[in-house]
């Protein structure tokens, strides 16, 4: 039979996590003989809408979207529904997640867990007490906002009430900016026991800056999210203490599976959660591939 044709609109290729998601998706699709057409919106919402409409014009069987702007999903949903093409959102929660048409779904990990898992582990390592600096991702990004909120939520619980956030700034998900931000903090004389970063890249940047000033890695707890290969290597080197594995490939695979089910008219759960997993020096080897 003709292989299924699925159009995939990724918000931005230049993102390590989304690259893992994308390659996971591609590998899986190749295995089960599904043809993917992957597009890069370059973080621009208008581009993405155009790509989806181009998919519709080309008559794909299903569309998978990793939205640039989770508010923009209504018109995407409308367009796909009007053309009768099934649509799956992946990784980023669309604003209309609770009113999706029948042949649409959402596959992701629940961001409420990521920051929570991460901060709880930091809290445990510090014994519930200490000064924390927070490196935020790009502020327009829902995950950055949610993960930062998670941190504050955990600190608001009685067990971790001894934690105090002494500085909180954005390093735009980037290693270079993370490193520069950390250097600036250090030179501003800010003291802290832990760094909680919204992702691993910024955490690695912080490590590099800290090492440069001669601070020993045992004296500070560093936490990231994503469990990228670089972060796992840093855990092995004793530099990063905590990260959270978000199953990128799992989300990609889940999105393809869900799309196929929708094409076949199967009844499915409209929200598919792929769980987060805590990664520490005790279990990191499991995640090294």
């Amino acid at each position, binding site marked *: 039979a003709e292989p299924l044709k699925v159009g995939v609109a990724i918000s931005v*290729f230049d993102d390590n996590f989304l690259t893992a998601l994308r390659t996971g998706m591609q590998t899986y699709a190749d295995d089960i003989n599904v043809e993917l057409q992957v597009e*890069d919106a370059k973080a621009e*919402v208008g581009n993405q809408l*155009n790509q989806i*409409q*181009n*998919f519709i*014009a080309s008559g794909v069987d299903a569309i998978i979207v990793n939205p640039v702007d989770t508010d*923009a999903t*209504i018109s995407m949903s409308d367009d796909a529904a009007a053309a009768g093409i099934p649509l799956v959102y992946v990784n980023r929660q669309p604003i209309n997640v609770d009113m999706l048409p029948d042949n649409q779904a959402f596959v992701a990990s629940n961001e409420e867990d990521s920051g929570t898992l991460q901060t709880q582990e930091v809290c445990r390592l510090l014994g519930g007490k200490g000064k924390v600096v927070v490196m935020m991702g790009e502020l327009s990004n829902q995950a950055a906002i949610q993960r930062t909120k998670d941190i504050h939520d955990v600190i608001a619980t009685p067990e971790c009430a001894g934690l105090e956030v002494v500085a909180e700034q954005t390093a735009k998900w980037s290693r270079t900016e993370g490193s520069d931000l950390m250097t600036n903090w250090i030179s501003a004389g800010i003291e802290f026991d832990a760094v909680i970063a919204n992702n691993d890249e910024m955490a690695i940047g912080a490590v590099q800056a800290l090492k440069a000033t001669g601070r020993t890695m045992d004296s500070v707890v560093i936490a990231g999210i994503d469990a990228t290969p670089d972060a796992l290597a840093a855990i092995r080197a004793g530099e990063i203490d905590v990260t959270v594995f978000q199953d990128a490939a799992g989300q990609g695979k889940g999105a393809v599976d869900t799309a196929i089910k929708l094409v076949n008219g199967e009844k499915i759960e409209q929200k598919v959660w792929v769980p987060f997993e805590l990664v520490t020096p005790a279990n990191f080897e499991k995640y090294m591939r």
Partner: protein
Amino acid sequence: MTTHTATAPVAPTPAQKKRLPQEFSILLVLFGIAAFFEVLGWFLVGQSFLGNMSRLQIIILQVSVIGIIAVGVTQVIITGGIDLSSGSVVAMSAMVAATFAQDANWPKIIHPALVDLPWFIPLMVGLAVGAAAGFVNGWLITKTRIPPFIATLGMMVSARGVARWYTDGSPVSGFTESFAMLGNGMGRWAPVVIFLVVAAVFHIVMRYTRFGKFTYAIGANPQAARVSGINIESHLIKVYMIAGLLAGLAAMVAIARIKTAQAGMGLMYELDAIAAAVIGGVSLSGGRGRITGTVIGALILGVMLSGFTFLRVDAYYQDIIKGAIIVVAVVVDIHRQGKRSKKT
């Protein structure tokens, strides 16, 4: 000594040879690219590229926003300037105007007192914000004499900052139905209609009005323009204001179409708009170029985008090829126009 009959020095050939318009060569490039996709389409996908109404619609639809911006940018380039701020001005106008376009049912309203306003209010706000940004650009360029590249680069960075700051980076959605018509009305053709009207108006302005003639004159030789009695300062300010206004209009069409405004919108639009103009034969050194060329340039970009998806070209290769096509389009155009650019 050879003998010569004296001829009158002025000999306007009575039957002036009608030359092909400059845009002709770039139009051929457009057709060439379209034909290329058509042929490959039959071979690789077994489908017609152009014989598909919804694809034709999306081709024009997706260049409408860039096209509207490019019309304004074309004027700026003809004066010998450049506008790098368009993309950021789009974002800024979009964010500000969007907060006036929300309907009362939306969970995340920015100004609770200002909901369900008629559609033209956010539209006016968007245009005004764009024009204001353009005014600042023009003012800086004429009064402080900094190069347009720098003035608009500064605006590019600052306007993006304003866009982010305005709602703390959160997107704004939930527009009234009437406002959304700007991007979806007329059977979804509204953006295209707006684009074509804008292009037609400015085609006429540039070719048949004093304003247009002065714009070319300034780009061709600002000092001579000044001696000819043209008030360069006020004219340039107008030109940059129009460019800003059109960026604002583009923003309104874009957000009405996608029904959300986001601070990251319009990233790199300035480059696409400039590329459309230059592919269309507008000279970056000023004084040369036409709106029709820019429209064709924008269409080339649109055909490329759709064509790639149609042929299922990998996103990686898309960029590689897109870069090459921009170059080739301009090369072909220059070589067809040939003679004019022969000078060292």
